[in-house]
């Protein structure tokens, strides 16, 4: 290899703007120092922002609740939509005369395994705040999620919800126990290392947020100059990357697709062999070790999804669960006096916000009745 290029006679030799620092430490050092400073500053800036975005366990773990928690509702986006913790708390207070404080940690595609590790994180980090906490887990049409540790612990596309909750030994156990494809293994390994940087791990959320903000500012700027005609063909929410409940006009279509896949048996196509070997059983143990109890609650669902719970497989599951539940002493509560119809599910999948207050109050009634009956 020969030496540096001869820049004599070029503009580089003429003006200070073109000159490289003579000291080689500065010349080369700037290529390490400047990127390092910029990346560190951004990473530091991103941390609180990404935590805020990642609602639920990470946020709760980073910023504990102000007062002790009596109950936590867990499940997927249906729980996130249907449970109004304030309504539940105030109704329960009316009934018992005691202050009650609950949290809704339902989230799109948060699996039983994700909830298991999330709850464990909260119980370990804030033992006083979560001591004796009751955990309500969704069981639509009486059936909670029947995933075992041999299944994928996260829903495809939502792996990022799981990885930050795992310890190193959990992660090793996950790779050993769960039956994962080689692509899935590679993805999880990638995420395991990526999580060390907020900037990398949450890049899709950051991108989405930044672009939405940028688009908003841009639309405002353009709007000041031009009249913008309204239309409906703009960007729609993407349930996967947005991590929230869809309310746009295509949501019902997505809901129907989901129902179809449910009906065709792609979800849980065989009966549960043993409920004691499900993740649910371990959640129960975890909750009871923390001094609390597990409560199953049925969720209102539209008629679109009802046939998915009326198959022979589901009937078998229901029967075996009833037998197991008796040995577990886990109550199943249903807000029987909550009346609803399909119009209460704008996307066929989630209970509308307007009805969540009512449902939560009725659920508090049902829970109160169960606790009273137990006494």
């Amino acid at each position, binding site marked *: 290899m020969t030496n540096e290029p001869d820049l004599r006679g070029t503009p580089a030799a003429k003006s200070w703007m073109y000159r490289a620092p003579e000291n080689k430490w500065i010349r080369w050092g700037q290529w390490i120092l400047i990127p390092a400073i910029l990346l560190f500053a951004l990473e530091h800036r991103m941390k609180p922002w990404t935590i805020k975005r990642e609602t639920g366990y990470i946020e709760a773990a980073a910023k504990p609740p102000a007062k002790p928690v009596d109950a936590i509702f867990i499940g997927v986006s249906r729980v996130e939509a249907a449970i109004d913790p304030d309504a539940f708390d105030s109704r329960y207070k009316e009934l018992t005369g005691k202050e009650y404080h609950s949290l809704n940690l339902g989230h799109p595609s948060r699996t039983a395994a994700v909830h298991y590790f999330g709850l464990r994180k909260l119980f370990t980090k804030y033992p006083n705040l979560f001591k004796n906490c009751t955990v309500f887990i969704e069981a639509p049409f009486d059936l909670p999620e029947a995933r075992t540790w041999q299944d994928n612990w996260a829903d495809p596309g939502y792996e990022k919800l799981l990885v930050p909750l795992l310890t190193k030994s959990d992660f090793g156990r996950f790779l050993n126990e769960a039956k994962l494809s080689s692509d899935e293994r590679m993805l999880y390994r990638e995420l395991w290392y990526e999580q060390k940087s907020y900037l990398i791990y949450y890049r899709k959320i950051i991108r989405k947020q930044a672009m939405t903000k940028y688009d908003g500012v841009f639309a405002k700027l353009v709007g000041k100059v031009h009249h913008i005609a309204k*239309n409906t063909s703009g960007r729609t929410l993407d349930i996967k990357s947005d991590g929230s409940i869809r309310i746009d006009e295509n949501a019902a279509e997505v809901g129907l697709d989901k129902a179809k896949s449910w009906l065709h048996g792609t979800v849980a196509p065989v009966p549960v062999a043993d409920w004691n070997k499900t993740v649910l059983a371990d959640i129960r143990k975890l909750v009871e070790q923390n001094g609390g109890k597990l409560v199953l609650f049925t969720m209102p669902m539209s008629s679109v999804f009802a046939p998915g719970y009326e198959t022979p497989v589901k009937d078998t599951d229901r029967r075996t669960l009833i037998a197991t539940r008796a040995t577990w002493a886990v109550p199943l509560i249903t807000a029987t006096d909550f009346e609803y119809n399909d119009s209460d599910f704008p996307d066929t999948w989630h209970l509308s916000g307007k009805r969540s207050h009512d449902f939560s109050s009725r659920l508090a009634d049902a829970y109160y009745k169960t606790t009273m009956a137990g006494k």
Partner: protein
Amino acid sequence: MLFNSLIFVPFVLIVLGLYYSMPFRWQNWMLLIASCIFYGCWDWRYLILLLFSTSIDFIVGQKLHDAHSPVVKKKLLLFSCVVNLSILGFFKYFNFFIDSASYMLSVLHLGKLGAHVTVLLPVGISFYTFHAMSYTIDIYRDKLNPIRNFADYMLFVLYFPQLVAGPIARASLLIPQVANPRKIKRSQIAEGIWLIFWGYIKKCLIADNLAPVANLVFEAKHIPNGVQCLLAIYAFAIQIYCDFSGYTDIARGLGKVMGFELSLNFNLPYIACNPPEFWQRWHISLSSWLRDYLYIPLGGNRKGTFMTYRNLVLTMVIGGLWHGAAWHFVLWGAYHGLILVLHRLIFGKKADKGVPASALNKNLSRICMFHLTCFGWLLFRVRDVSQLTESLHSLTSRLVLDASAVTMLSSLVLFGGILAVMELWIQNSDDPRKRPMWNMGLGPVAVTILALLFMLLYPQSQQAFLYFQF
């Protein structure tokens, strides 16, 4: 194997590691094997085709040099050209011509042609055919001595960075670099790394993010409205430039880190003031190939005004057809031929100089030329004639700035802005260290910001290189 695929990274690292640790002869063998693997990843059977055509050109090259009779020489050249163009014609244009002829016959109520070949187009066939043809033509013209080592000749044709999407290497430029030991300068490595980095930024950050903006309109059943159509054309103009020049930059950068100097293919084409200048800046290796091996042999501008115009249009039509076997490419080529002719008609003998004197004139000419080019891109991008007419109707009548258009505009401003800022600063230099403030800390800042943007805004769906289909 695509430059933007994950497998390409370890492939290149292994190739470079082996390359630096080997003596010259071994380097060539290793590069040849690597190039075969690179190409064979698409379909190994096309390697046989490639081996066949390169063997013919290699033998013809030797014979051409040894032959003394001009008649024999001419026959040999003709044979080489026929073989190369037949392969290209069969794989790329057979179905196109059969379909077109069939359509014509059906219009004239004379029946239909049944022949139709279902065959996959060999990747980069247009590039390596022109590549190989330049070798025999240059020997015929006594501009080049034939290469005696078949492996070296194979490497000249197959060299993987430029095999599938150019730049179309001239034998006279590349063969000496293949046949002689290469000295790698430090500056070459620095330039190579920069070109690879900037190439990926252009392709993966800018082109791939603007592709959905253009597709939103051109992939839709109907053109939404005039503003969206206009923005989609602008987006496509930037997309195709960044996609293709990004590929070329990566290819040239890879060449540089191995001590090869591949020819420049793009030189800020959108600042061209007139059509001839545009073609001196856009896909330079193709336009100069067409000029030297087609336009000039046809007579160039030496046989009177009419023949000059005919030659211009013919060359551009063939250039359009080179891009793909479809009528809209022919139309695009003809359009460029026509604007070259119109430019000559308006500016006469000044046409080749033709750069307006004042800065205002210059910039107005640039804007005009950019829009003329954009109109060409509309012809290039549309699916069919009905989409073209619909687009033209929208552009002239349905100008509505709606929410979708604002979203498209915001993407265009962001990614077009990144391109404009960097291009104005770096000025297409291979060595950004020669640009103002680069060494004063702005270089590391720019590279860090671009890398961050690359990471954050890397599109969820990767797009294949547009020019791979050619």
